[in-house]
């Protein structure tokens, strides 16, 4: 293992105008920046383009337009360096069924210049993963933890995680989040994670980006989102008195409406009698999707 030089930069990820089209889907003009030392959560429905975005960042898919900088390096020019400082956990593909973590270690330490065997074994111990157990005999939770251990072993500065906690029980998820928070204690480290489980992101993500049908609808500080967005529950007649610019979207049910408001302070000033409920990321996501 060679000792790693930490890369110092302002932004761990700078994506500008990323575009990619497939037969039935188009990723349009994705631009966002992840400041170093922070966690960004990527939310969106299945098929919104979260995995595609991650793959574009890594160069696994060729982008049609736009540019990417990871850790202030251009992946096209310094592919090996970028990947040496990046740890990835993808939903698909990993290791072979018949191999055990011990064998994975023997293989990966020869493949990765910064692989830290001692750290990998320590992580395995911390996660309670037996060294000799074959991958196919592991539960989903163990596999998720193993993937993360393998991604973290070379002390990366950027973690790209695609739905890392799907299939994990709440206890395991909580432990996983603790690990991520521990990882971010180093200011030069950053995380981009995509997840369905919005409650996890509410807890740990500094920024939240919402991908919907291939478009980035917003990318904001999570606390700002949670503080400013609100839901007004009112009757249909009351709703119809609202102007279109006052709300983002609404959902009608048999007994009233749920209306998503972008700025609760502005809305409160205009409609002081209105009762505003705080909006969770899940609510924001589901109501945003109702936008016509």
């Amino acid at each position, binding site marked *: 293992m060679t000792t790693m030089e930490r890369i110092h930069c302002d932004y761990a990820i700078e994506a500008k105008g990323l575009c990619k089209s497939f037969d039935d889907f188009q990723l349009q003009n994705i631009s966002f920046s992840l400041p170093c030392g922070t966690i960004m959560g990527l939310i969106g429905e299945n098929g919104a383009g979260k995995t595609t975005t991650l793959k574009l960042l890594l160069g*696994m*898919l060729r982008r049609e337009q736009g540019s990417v900088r990871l850790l202030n390096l251009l992946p096209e020019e310094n592919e090996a360096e970028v*990947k040496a400082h*990046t740890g990835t956990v993808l939903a698909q593909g990993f*290791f072979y069924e018949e191999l055990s973590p011990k064998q994975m270690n023997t*293989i990966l330490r020869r*493949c990765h210049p910064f692989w830290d065997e001692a750290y990998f074994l320590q992580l395995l111990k911390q996660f309670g993963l037996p060294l000799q157990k074959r991958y196919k005999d592991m539960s989903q939770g163990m596999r998720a933890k193993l993937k993360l251990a393998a991604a973290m072993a070379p002390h990366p500065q950027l973690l790209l995680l695609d739905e890392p906690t799907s299939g994990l029980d709440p206890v395991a998820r909580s432990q996983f989040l603790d690990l991520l928070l521990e990882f971010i204690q180093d200011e030069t480290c950053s995380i981009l994670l995509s997840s369905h489980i919005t409650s996890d992101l509410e807890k740990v993500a500094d920024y939240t980006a919402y991908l919907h049908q291939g478009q980035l609808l917003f990318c904001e500080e999570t606390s700002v989102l949670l503080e400013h967005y609100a839901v007004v529950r009112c009757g249909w007649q009351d709703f119809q008195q609202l102007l279109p610019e006052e709300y983002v979207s609404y959902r009608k049910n048999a007994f009233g409406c749920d209306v998503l408001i972008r700025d609760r302070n502005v809305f409160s000033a205009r409609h002081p009698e209105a009762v505003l409920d705080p909006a969770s990321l899940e609510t924001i996501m589901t109501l945003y999707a109702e936008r016509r």
Partner: protein
Amino acid sequence: MLGLLLKDIYNLKKTGRTLSLFLVLYGAFAVLSGEFSILSGLCAMIAVLLPISAFSLDQSSQWNVYAVTLPIRRRLLVTSRYVFTLLCLGVMTALQILVGGFVLVQSYGISEMSDHLLTCLFIDSVLLFLLSLGCAALFRFGPEKGRIVMMAIAMLPAAALLLFTKLMPEAMLLTLSDAAFRALPFLSAFKNGQPIYLWSAALFCLAASLLCFGLSCLYSCRYMEKQEF
């Protein structure tokens, strides 16, 4: 490179063990009966089977999708696969030479060794050529389709030759072969079995096959560089 080769070895341990059993059985049979053509066939088959299995495993566990996120150059991923194929061929060839040689020397004496080596060289050339086309096909089309392509490549010349000899009337064949011998005089050297010609031909074939193998590797590297995951 070493890590990638290790991974293939680890993966094929189980398969390897089963195949080794067969090798031991037929090896023993060959030694005892003096008939080693079956062993020969088995070695050739294993030399082709192991790389295909390695490809297959890569595909089923989607290893390439993961490997692309690691700081491993795509070229290395391809080259390691080709090196592994060469290794398999090398090991099987060594086995064939040793066991076959032992059997022959036992039965017929040391003079047969030279002929045996020549045969092995020719078989290797053919196998290497087959593998160069096969590996390229496996990279390009994936193990499912690639396997079919490989079998077709193996069968096609044999089938063509068979058809050709069956369909052509006897007289035509004789005239053709006469014409060939007259046009290419060194072919008669083959007929006479002069060692220098045979050896140079064998080495030439091997070199040509190695060249094909190298070209196939380059082609696959190019293909992998452009691949999307």
